[in-house]
């Protein structure tokens, strides 16, 4: 038997093993890759939900929306978790998603939310993270960041390949509007490089290749809680920070509507909300601040939150990316 055959048999075996479980109803949830790893919130969610649903919750990781759109109405997914607002317009227009029916009065987001299709479960804001042992006084505003000396080294993500990179250009767009390209031109000499995804950038920052990295206001919480390291901080700008929220939605064509509804309700329950902070290193969407883990209470959070609705974002997106591209291509 060749190893290839072994791989095949192995795959076939797993297939049979999963069909054997089919007597208990299965809820298929598509989630981003980071979600389902052993350090993501996935395994915990599975454990908590299966305890109350008498069902088998199956996470399928990978590209979320591209895959759903490729599969169309034949998708196996019952629920999708981990979408971002910048793709919800495309998702909504696909007509594949149904209303969630969950009461939204428990939400503790910094801005009002009334979407009946996409349900938020955690949020954060874009922010530049710095190391207090290397920078005593970080720029006190976005304006100060633009005017900072050019030896301040920033690393950011590409808005064309990364969600956080896209959030950054929307952030600059919402602060500077028509002046966005000038703002980028001032930032350009400070930008060491642009990476494809968040991981590469953050790795460069922790390796000392950059002084500040585009990340989230919640990033320091990981260092505080998991590493007992309080030297990583978010620089807070009075101009405001761009709001980033992660969403879940139910597929209209689900063959498990009751289970899907139950899961959507579960997302805003205390059990889910209580673990999401340290599971996904983000702020729970429906949990008062006094119930946050201690590390999260220590975070620098912005007073002012900037946010484009999906229609606004769709309208300014091309312009915002072009301002970035033009200024950084000089």
């Amino acid at each position, binding site marked *: 038997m060749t190893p290839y055959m*072994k791989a095949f048999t192995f795959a076939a075996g797993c297939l049979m093993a999963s069909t054997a479980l089919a007597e208990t109803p299965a809820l298929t949830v598509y989630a981003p890759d980071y979600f389902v*790893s052993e350090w993501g919130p996935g395994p915990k969610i599975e454990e908590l939900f299966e305890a109350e649903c008498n069902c088998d919750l199956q996470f399928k990781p990978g590209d979320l929306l591209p895959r759903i759109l490729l599969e169309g109405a034949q998708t196996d997914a019952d629920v999708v978790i981990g979408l971002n607002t910048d793709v919800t317009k495309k998702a909504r227009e696909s007509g594949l998603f149904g209303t969630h029916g969950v009461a939204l009065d428990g939400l503790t987001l910094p801005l009002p939310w009334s979407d009946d299709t996409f349900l938020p479960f955690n949020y954060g804001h874009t922010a530049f993270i710095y190391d207090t042992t290397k920078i005593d006084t970080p720029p006190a505003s976005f304006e100060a960041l633009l005017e900072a000396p050019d030896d301040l080294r920033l690393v950011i993500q590409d808005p064309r390949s990364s969600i956080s990179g896209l959030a950054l250009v929307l952030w600059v767009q919402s602060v500077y509007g028509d002046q966005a390209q000038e703002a980028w031109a001032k930032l350009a000499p400070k930008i*060491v490089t642009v990476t494809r995804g968040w991981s590469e950038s953050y*790795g*460069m920052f922790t390796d000392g290749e950059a002084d500040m990295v585009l990340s989230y206001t919640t990033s320091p919480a990981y260092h505080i809680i998991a590493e007992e390291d309080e030297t990583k901080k978010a620089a807070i700008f009075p101009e405001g920070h761009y709001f980033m929220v992660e969403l879940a939605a139910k597929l209209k064509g689900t063959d498990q509507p009751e289970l899907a509804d139950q899961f959507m309700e579960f997302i805003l329950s205390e059990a889910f909300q209580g673990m999401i902070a340290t599971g996904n290193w983000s702020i729970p969407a429906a949990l008062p601040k006094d119930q946050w883990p201690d590390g999260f209470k220590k975070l620098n959070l912005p007073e002012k939150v900037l946010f484009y609705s999906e229609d606004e974002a769709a309208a300014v997106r091309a312009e915002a990316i072009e301002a970035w591209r033009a200024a950084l291509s000089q």
Partner: protein
Amino acid sequence: MILAALVLAILTLGPIGAVLVRAGGLGDLAPGDLQALRFTVFQATLSGLFSVALAIPVARALARQTFWGRGLLVSLMGAPFILPVIVAVMGLLAVFGRSGLVNGALDALGLPNVNIYGLHGVVLAHVFFNLPLAVRMLLQAWLAIPAERFRLASSLGLTPWGVFCTLEWPLLRRIAPGAFAVVFVICLTSFAVALTLGGGPRATTVELAIYQAMRFDFDLGRAAVLGLVQLTLGFVAGLVALKLAPAQGFGIGRGRWVARWDGRGLARVLDFFWIGLAAAFLLAPLALVVARGVPGLLEGAGEGTWRAAGHSLMVALASTTLAVLWALPLATRRGELLSIAAIAISPLVLGTGLFLLLRPFVNPFTMALPVTAVVNALMALPFMLRILRPEAEQVARDFGRLGATLRMTPWAWLRLVWLPRLRRPLGFAMGLTAALAMGDLGVIALFADPDRATLPLQIHRLMGAYRMEAAAGAALLLLMLSFGLFWLFDRGGRVHVED
């Protein structure tokens, strides 16, 4: 032969076709796409030229000098090629980055710093990845020149220039264009490396545009057009390279390793300069990858990482077996041309196309590992053929008539002539395939399965969860496993050849 070629063509064109059908036709290009195309071709050309040009003195030096640890050095120098991109970039930055070793040394000497980010950084990184491949391709060919010819040259009293003209130049003309084409085509699909070391959107490649079209805009038509452009470029590069490379050969040898009589004195000093330079350039970033990974690995890799390592090993062995079976019938000029286009196909388009093709029949999630194995075999095929074909053809040329005269059966031919003569390139090619398959991440995104992650995916997940140290540890594990597989196959191929 026809069957193997057919499978190859179906696997290359089928997925693009599937994406096109799903998109409902070709899409329009975006304004930045032409600029991206120009940059892609430019950087790939430079990367190919530099990799091959630098490989020539290094391969020549390695071919004619013997020293302690030469075999290990040759093996180790192959390692950059098999590193996952993200790991290699971190290693390169630790050496050439703003706070890297080079700038640290310059600071200490009071000299101005060098800036790695820009076109030169992209080329530097691509040379780092591909110089080992080019060196090994040339070295294989150099070692395949029957040593008797060098002896003959010496007894005829040929000057070094004479040796170069009669023996080495024909060899370079035969091997270098193909090596250039392979490096060029690999660099065509570069994305994360080009962007990170290019320093920003100036370094936008076609593959990034495909990524954007596929993942963000869900513009399959545009993705398919760009994928076709990339494929055509690769095909043309392969065609040109094969046209440039003439057939060669006179006088066969007995396939022994014989001490060379040239490369003494000043030439020896120069040879060691090149070997030292290449070794420092290739091994310093590797050493830092190892150093960064040790703490993470010592802390314990975690169960998930070990399981992922097991999956990766399985995929690697399956890919290697498949690639060998595939490559043997295709080791001809036409077969190579066909296969070279295969690496020019965008992994994203390939993954999406396969997803569309397979989905009506099987559950894609259960196919994660088999699909990865097949795709990796496909991607490794051009390397395998590039390494095998020149020597396979030469064996046929040199011994075909003798075999026919003796009325050898195909089996006897394979066992007595073909395999023993091709042992070295075959071992190298298998090692490369296995190692490449270990490090691949490309197509798995649409087929990912929570319980069947491969090691590169695991590294990605660890980094995504802020576990930078554990990720560095897993990267070291990947490096060790890839290199171990590579070394085993490569060594297996070289037994009895040099000792």
